[in-house]
């Protein structure tokens, strides 16, 4: 197991390095920080000077190399927009995003597993059809549209209908003014963002869980345990359920990059200053250093998450021998 983990990490490093070069090339050639000097007097000289100052007169490889060595020293550069160190901006933005990802994953897993198990045990029942229909709508629902609908129907509508002084769910930020920590106020803030972030995951994962549970329920060993008189409850929860969980682990891990993409939409709609907002602000402001740092941090996060899932897979399923 240990050698497997080590090999995975060693393989991830070149992937990360090559990816960082392509991202660097893409971002550097998209944004020209000297563009704003084009209209100044003596533009050619000013731009040349500025380029020299920022090191942009060198080849793209040389530029990437100096960025990369700085990155290895923990220095992600200085933001063009705010003049803050990129690393501290990212550190600040990570926390709200981690909260969304954490609650989102837990919520989505709980619902998806519940629905999946129910639909497979009661296959072709009215409930199964209802969940299937809902999951089709969920898969077809772009998260931003769900967010808009949720705010209109769950925040604005109750306030208008019942003339509330404050909404049941909030649609801005993670806390009210002066509040902090885990309390009812926090839950009223985070409910809709978590729903928006996970609407597609819940739909996809529940379908997946249903299919994998059905697979297991039709397996020979389940028939054997029924035949020898194990109560149906125990067949489902002791014998089938545990094994049906295993494939879901991989799917959840593979979706981690997708969830980070979902953060961009969710945080924009619900005004949460996390990684998603940081990305959008950097993109619209042409803030290349922040974009570069963002991509690398996210890539590392996704790699680590996938690795954890692989390890968990091996631990959960002793049939899988990695080594």
């Amino acid at each position, binding site marked *: 197991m240990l050698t497997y983990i080590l090999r995975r990490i060693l393989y991830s490093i070149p*992937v*990360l390095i*090559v*990816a960082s070069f*392509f*991202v660097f090339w*893409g*971002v550097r*050639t*998209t944004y020209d920080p000297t563009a704003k000097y084009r209209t100044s007097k003596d533009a050619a000289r000013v731009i040349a000077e500025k380029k020299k100052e920022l090191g942009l007169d060198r080849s793209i490889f040389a530029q990437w190399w100096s960025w990369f060595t700085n990155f290895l020293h923990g220095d992600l550069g200085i933001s063009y927009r705010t003049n803050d160190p990129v690393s501290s901006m990212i550190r600040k933005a990570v926390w709200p995003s981690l909260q969304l990802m954490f609650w989102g994953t837990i919520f989505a897993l709980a619902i998806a597993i519940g629905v999946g198990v129910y639909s497979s045990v009661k296959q072709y029942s009215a409930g199964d059809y209802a969940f299937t229909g809902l999951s*089709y*709508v969920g*898969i*077809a*629902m*772009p*998260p*931003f*549209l769900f967010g*808009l*609908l949720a*705010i*209109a129907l769950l*925040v*604005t*509508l109750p306030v*208008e209908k019942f003339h509330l002084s404050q909404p049941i769910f909030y*649609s801005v930020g993670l806390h009210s003014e002066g509040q902090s920590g885990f309390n009812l106020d926090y839950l009223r803030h985070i409910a809709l963002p978590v729903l928006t972030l996970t609407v597609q995951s819940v739909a996809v994962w529940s379908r997946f869980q249903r299919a994998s549970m059905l697979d297991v329920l039709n397996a020979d060993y389940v028939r054997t345990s029924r035949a020898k008189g194990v109560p149906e409850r125990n067949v489902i929860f002791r014998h089938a359920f545990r094994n049906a969980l295993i494939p879901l682990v991989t799917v959840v891990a*593979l979706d981690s*990059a*997708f969830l*980070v*993409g*979902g953060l*961009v*939409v969710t945080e*924009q709609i619900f005004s949460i200053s996390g990684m998603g907002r940081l*990305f*959008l602000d950097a*993109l*619209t402001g042409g803030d290349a250093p922040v*974009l570069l740092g*963002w*991509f690398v941090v*996210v*890539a590392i996060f*996704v*790699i680590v998450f996938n690795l954890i899932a692989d390890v968990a897979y091996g631990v959960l399923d002793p049939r899988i021998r990695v080594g």
Partner: protein
Amino acid sequence: MTTAPVLPDVDTELALPPGAEPVARSNWQLFRRRFFRHKLAVVAIVVLLLLLVVCFGASWIAPYPKNQTNLLITPGGPSAKHWFGTNALGQDMLTQVLYGGQISLKIGIAVAFFSTVVGVFVGAIAGFYRGWTDQGLSRLVDLFLIVPELAILAVAIERLGRSDNAFIIVLAALGWMYIARVVRGQVLSLREKEFVEAARASGASGPRIIVRHILPNCIGPIMVNATLAIAAAVIAESTLTYLGLGLQPPATSWGILLNQAESAVTSTSQFYLVFFPGLFLILTVLAVNFLGDGLRDAFDPQSPH
């Protein structure tokens, strides 16, 4: 079909009356029977055709000229004159939704076409010849798996200019890899089959084996993934445009209409501004997904027919 009574879901039509001759059916006939069995897929294809007709026929069907503003009328909800209401600029929402559909659907279909063509080509070569194409494909997919697609898209669109053609290029450039991986997997297993060996033994060249023997057997997964690509492209375009990173007025797409409808979330009296473009968007994606399901069943020789 002699085992028919044992199968749970067998069509009663197919249970032959005693003494009757079994009817030979061509592949195409079997495909049609299986597809039309899937009621939702049939509804989906009707919905999709309707959407295509009303959106691309917008210049004849739409009640008002595209983007025509009328600042004299107060924006209001659905009425007899404006079925989908009017927005803050006095534009008729029905007209805008129909014209917006042109761009959204065009992007979806074009992306599905180009990513399928490239994906099938690369996937077939990687799966059949293995070697460096296969290695390159796997490494490339590894690179893209670790970064959120939405972020790559946003940067690439920024770089190429925010036009519908930029969307088609970028989405196809990202999307072909999924189809290539699927095709590669199929080809990898098919190339070991006896019928390929037979073709090789009778002297068929590599390209001929791929085109005449292997690809026809992959048509199911390819078509299903092409429909998924349409759905993914329509969603990606609307999401980026909604975020203000995609298309911009005077172009119009469902994403732009939803972007302009932000006021609707602060007042339910303007909910219709979100409702109608959103409805068309979801309807499109749902219909395309159901179509994919129907095709999956229809192409699957194992499904009952």
